[in-house]
């Protein structure tokens, strides 16, 4: 595959661009103090209710009954509003996408591939890039201090490679390990292009990715385009559930946000950026564990629009075991919370770029903090009620209602994305099993984040030779 070419080896000095804004010191003490204060206030409130209740016409059992009813109704109402608003907005976006066809452009693009211990999948990933329907791009791989055979594999790929429409220059940067954010910044620094595509080294891009994504940069206000992430390693129970989650849970929300041009997370496996937007946002930061969410918020805060392109597809490997899945979601949750914390000052500030930006951060807070707690509390209530008051048929009707809602949403999303119809049946257990596991993991991660417990970047095991 590699053609004969002479290597130029150059020593460069890479500066970790942005300095971290997070104040790690004393944060755990601060949040512990907050938890103690809020806990004490809650106990005082419970005691006040307990002692003043006999003075009213309510009994304790009727109070619990009424409060639970109100809580369940609120849960259902919020759930329905969330679902239908996302469905309607994503429908409007798909409608607009179908009828508005911006002209194609082909400026020079640098594809940045950060690598850390990916010797099994790197070659396949680069081959998918050489198969792109685009004739004006280069590939820059950044080996972030891999400890396995990655360096040898990457060096064998360096050269002028035969692309689908043109020759493609493949460059490698070997550097000591410093994290994904700095690896990406290094690649962006070396790139001479006005547009960069950042991806993961375990992902494969669909051939028309660049062609369809670049069209949106006709609008000079568009700073970035988020791609569509799909699960590559399917045909397993857990990975099929994630495939459905990516289609129904993530892509539907992204399509809905795209209608207002404010996609809140440009996914790590595929994001195309205007270099100017990256510069105005201050590039990737390494002070959160979700550098993609952080960068997206910074780009939006700088006033750029962010679009979602459903045909720019990146096939990525999803965790195939429950342990790996929890590890991944733990990192995502804490990373998103760290990003929200960094940008919370802009929510109700006059410096906020738009009402849409404020709405998007509030939506992120709801998704990361409020929704998981509501879901867990509802499920716990049903367990409690079933054990203490006997199994009620209400349990079945509740589950059936949610399952029908998920089936409808899954049917719509799968039809829109022309996905596998067999995934629809996973919607039956999607909310009761899969989302509950994810939400418990999110809740635990949230507690740890507020307590300031140290965390490490999890590395997932990869499988070789997977085809999209």
């Amino acid at each position, binding site marked *: 595959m590699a053609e004969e*070419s*002479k*290597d*130029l*080896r*150059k*020593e*460069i*000095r*890479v*500066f*970790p661009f942005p300095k971290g804004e997070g104040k790690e010191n004393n944060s755990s003490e601060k949040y512990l103090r907050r938890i103690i204060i809020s806990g004490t206030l809650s106990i005082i409130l419970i005691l006040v209710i307990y002692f003043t209740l006999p003075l009213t016409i309510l009994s304790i059992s009727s109070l619990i009954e009424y409060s639970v009813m109100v809580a369940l109704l609120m849960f259902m109402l919020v759930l329905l509003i969330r679902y239908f608003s996302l469905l309607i907005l994503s429908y409007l976006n798909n409608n607009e996408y179908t009828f508005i066809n911006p002209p194609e452009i082909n*400026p*020079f693009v640098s594809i940045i591939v950060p690598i850390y211990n990916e010797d099994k999948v790197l070659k396949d990933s680069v081959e998918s890039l050489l198969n792109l329907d685009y004739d*004006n791009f*280069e590939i820059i791989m950044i080996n972030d201090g891999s400890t396995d055979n990655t360096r040898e594999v990457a*060096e064998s790929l*360096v*050269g*002028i490679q035969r692309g689908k429409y*043109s*020759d*493609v*220059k*493949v*460059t*490698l*940067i*070997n*550097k*000591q390990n*410093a994290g994904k954010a*700095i690896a990406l910044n*290094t690649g962006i620094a*070396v*790139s*001479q*292009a006005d547009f960069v595509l950042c991806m993961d080294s375990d992902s494969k891009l669909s051939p028309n990715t660049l062609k369809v994504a670049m069209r949106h940069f006709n609008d000079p206000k568009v700073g970035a385009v988020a791609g569509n992430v799909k699960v590559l390693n399917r045909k397993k129970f857990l990975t099929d559930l994630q495939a459905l989650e990516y289609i129904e849970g993530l892509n539907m929300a992204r399509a809905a946000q795209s209608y207002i041009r404010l996609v809140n997370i440009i996914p790590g496996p595929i994001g195309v950026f205007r270099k100017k937007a990256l510069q105005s946002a201050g590039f990737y930061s390494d002070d959160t564990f979700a550098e993609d969410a952080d960068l997206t918020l910074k780009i939006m805060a700088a006033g750029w629009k962010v679009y979602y392109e459903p045909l720019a597809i990146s096939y990525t490997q999803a965790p195939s075991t*429950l*342990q790996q899945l*929890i*590890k991944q979601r*733990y990192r995502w949750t804490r990373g998103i919370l760290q990003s929200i914390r960094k940008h919370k000052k802009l929510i109700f500030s006059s410096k906020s770029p738009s009402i849409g930006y404020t709405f998007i951060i509030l939506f992120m807070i709801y998704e990361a903090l409020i929704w998981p707690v509501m879901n867990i509390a509802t*499920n716990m209530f*049903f*367990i409690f009620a*079933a054990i203490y008051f006997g*199994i*009620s*048929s209400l*349990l*079945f009707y509740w589950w059936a209602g949610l399952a029908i809602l998920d089936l409808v949403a899954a049917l719509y999303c799968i039809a829109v994305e022309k996905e596998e119809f067999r995934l629809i049946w996973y919607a039956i257990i999607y909310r*009761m*099993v899969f989302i*509950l*596991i994810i939400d*418990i*993991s999110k809740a*635990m991660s949230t507690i740890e984040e507020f307590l300031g417990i140290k965390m*490490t970047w999890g590395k997932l095991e990869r499988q070789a030779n997977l085809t999209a």
Partner: protein
Amino acid sequence: MELIPILSMIILVATISTFILAIGSYVLYKVRERKAQVSAAPRPAVYQAEVISPVALSGEIQTAQFQPYTDVRPVQMQETYSPSAEHQFAQEPAPSVYNPQPRQFTSTGGQRQRGKTTDENKYLKYTSEGYVPPSSDKKSGTAKWK
């Protein structure tokens, strides 16, 4: 027994199992994480990196102007290579059975005596009298069909 209470029971068991599974997996993850945790090395202010890049492309991709390598030490190049006499002799092998002396080449002036290369009977023609050489076929060229 009715169907709905049975289904409700299944849902209840599934929900409780999911809770146990999720919390168990989380605890297990934390235990493993703690075991695998190593003390992080202090992060340097500047990272060293090495760029390995092919030479500039010829023709098609020139949009990105790749900066040529500037840190390469210049190599002194001679226009023609002339090895020293000592080196020259050392490189020539001694004549032996396996390495005979080259014989003088004598030119034949480009004239080669060519033998008969084609057999007359190579291309035969099939007639009503059987296979005959094309020269002996008297009816050659006359109309076969009337």
